[in-house]
């Protein structure tokens, strides 16, 4: 779909909202949070059969009232020639808010991924707490991940952290598991499932089961 239009929603005071986007190819959402609202978003890229999928996702969240909470979880398990490109933009316009972002990608074969995370804490947003973690595992030399965390902090009384790493599966853990009779492939699967657990465990039980089954089929 070309020229997809932006979806706008506003969470009113104290409203709670949970959204799950599974394999949305052209999502572009702008969500405004008023005071005391709670937003949890899951963005998931994992398709067993659509081996040439190209996903583009944009999520823009603005905290416009005090004491908002925003949680963003994203994961991608890419294979063949799939591509996933994710942009998150979280603006703390008013203080006392909390946001956390956990974004995890595993890239195999000739896949490409990118994550750009714009986190802004504006001058009026004192006593904000904001965290962003992006972890990526490359399973193939031909896979490529670009990660660009961008923090802009204009208030002085805030707690903020970000971290981005891209690496391979932990060789020492793989060998340890092999020494315990577990084949290299099974060991890798256990490690990858564990890697995604932080994202998956925040879904409903039913969704967790569905996602875990899909992961199993892909691995």
């Amino acid at each position, binding site marked *: 779909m070309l020229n997809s239009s932006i979806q706008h929603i506003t969470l009113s005071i104290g409203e709670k909202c949970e959204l799950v986007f599974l394999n949305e190819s052209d999502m572009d959402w702008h969500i405004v949070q008023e005071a005391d609202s709670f937003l949890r978003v899951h963005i998931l890229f994992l398709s067993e059969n659509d081996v040439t999928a190209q996903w583009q996702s944009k999520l823009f969240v603005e905290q416009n009232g005090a004491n908002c909470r925003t949680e963003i979880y994203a994961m991608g398990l890419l294979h063949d020639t799939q591509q996933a490109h994710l942009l998150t933009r979280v603006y703390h316009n008013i203080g006392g808010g909390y946001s956390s972002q956990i974004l995890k990608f595993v890239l195999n074969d000739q896949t490409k991924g990118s994550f750009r995370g714009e986190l802004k804490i504006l001058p009026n947003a004192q006593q904000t707490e904001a965290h962003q973690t992006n972890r990526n595992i490359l399973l193939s030399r031909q896979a490529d991940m670009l990660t660009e965390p961008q923090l802009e902090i204009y208030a002085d009384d805030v707690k903020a952290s970000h971290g981005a790493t891209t690496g391979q599966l932990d060789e020492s*853990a793989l*060998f340890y598991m092999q*020494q*315990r009779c*577990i084949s*290299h492939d*099974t060991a890798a699967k*256990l490690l990858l499932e*564990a890697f995604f657990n932080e994202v998956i465990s925040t879904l409903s039980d039913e969704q967790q089961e569905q996602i875990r089954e899909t992961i199993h089929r892909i691995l």
Partner: protein
Amino acid sequence: MLEIKNLHASIAGKEILKGLNLTINEGEVHAIMGPNGAGKSTLSNVLTGHPAYTVTEGEIIFRGKNLLEMTPEVRAREGIFLSFQYPVEIPGVSIVNFMRTAVNEKRQHEGKEPLKATDFLKLMREKKALVGMDNKLTNRSVNEGFSGGEKKRNEIFQMAMLEPCLSILDETDSGLDIDALRIVAEGVNALKTPKTASIVITHYQRLLDYIVPDFVHVLANGKIVRTGGKELALELEANGYAFLNN
């Protein structure tokens, strides 16, 4: 059970083992001592098939089979167990899931059916009791946030679960206080049978007060340079390795 002949092994092009010979029979406990850098940990890594090490010469026969042709997991399933000097933390993988996978992969290798969930849990309970492993630990991720002593006890627990023929204890005493050392040693002794054998790699004599060896070998410069009975460990404790320089 194990026969190592003229073993040469290197890591990153540097030769560490330079013609090591060692024969181990069922029921025996062999201690391997020696100065830092002698090749003690290289020996355990080569026996278990660590990919960073290359065997350049010699052979290892384990229960009549060529060990060097086997992948690390096949060696483990054939009955070689290494209690790691530094057990690895695996966040997100529970001990229960880890052990169920390990036990069942070993059973499959032996042509046995996977254990039923109830039988597996019963086995866990039995082995936890044997090595004094706390329930609180087995509900956690593998080694994550464990103290040094808890990690070593978890190694012995896994050894009890997998019932190896040959267990290699690599510096199992490092980082343990005397009470933890005694408990770990008791676990090892409880698992000993006339059909099993152990290699105990250690810097210090004190572990050998609890796990009494039949043979003590001194490894230096990639070879075994001296072999004796348990009294050799006491002599080394008293006099050190100065004799190596003569």
